[in-house]
């Protein structure tokens, strides 16, 4: 499992990509989906997920649809047009960052005489 600090920066691209692939999802579903897809390596905490979902909604990237399920409201999140436009740039940025990290950490150690 990766640390919360490490996941903080990539949570937004993860949310955007998931919603781009699956249409609309609710919070619990997002957590379970990420957990299953990453074979348990990425566990999104509720304390990080909901603030990010709400911030993305407020910034106009996501929209919500509330449905009554078992005496409670379930909020489904989906991408707005503005949100759809930032999915690819967000993914490209993460991939580029991954390549840069590989340059930094991927090289074998130079021998010290």
């Amino acid at each position: 499992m990766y640390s919360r600090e490490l996941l903080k920066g990539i949570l937004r691209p993860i949310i955007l990509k998931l919603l781009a692939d699956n249409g609309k999802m609710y919070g619990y579903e997002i957590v379970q989906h990420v957990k299953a897809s990453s074979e348990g390596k990425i566990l999104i905490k509720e304390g990080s997920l909901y603030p990010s979902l709400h911030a993305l909604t407020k910034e106009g990237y996501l929209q919500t649809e509330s449905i009554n399920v078992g005496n409670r409201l379930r909020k489904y999140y989906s991408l707005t047009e503005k949100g759809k436009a930032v999915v690819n740039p967000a993914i490209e940025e993460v991939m580029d960052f991954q390549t840069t990290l590989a340059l930094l950490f991927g090289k074998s150690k130079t021998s010290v005489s």
Partner: protein
Amino acid sequence: MTEHHVQHIKDYLKSQGFSDFELMDDLTDHLATEIEFSMDSEKLDFETSFENAKQKLLPDFPYQLERDLKILTTPKHNIMMKKIAFIGGYLSALCLTISILFGVLSHQEKTDANSYRILVDTQNKANLLIGEKYDNEWKDYLSKMEDSQLNIIRKSKLFQSFLALSALILSLTYLPYRFYNGYQKSQLELVA
């Protein structure tokens, strides 16, 4: 899950200090889904499942979640407004302190001026009795009394200026922020 169970979850969140209804809806559904899963798969009762879900899903201080949300969703101009309000509040308090200082100094100067006045009067009476002219000591007292009276006027003016400045800064920076904050809270209560 019954309506009573859902209300129980909502009451718990309220007791933890949550006031953002959008966030409470999300967390209620999240906890309820986890509880339902636990009740179905592990055949546990609601209370046990709820306790497990709280420990598993919520941080040690659940309200931290709403704080994080506020930080993430607070527009930049609100942060700037808060900064201005706090700097204004500080400057206003500083001006008030300086004004009080000048008020105290002015009062002290009044006491000194009164003392010199008494000395001048006494000297006057003594000189009249013995028929002597005003000596240097009397002139010295008189000049000190005049200086003190001038200082009283100067310090009183500074006291008034700083007091007015303090009130002005407070009313232009900190008070609008407090009223705006109060207005937002009352709007939330109306929605509740």
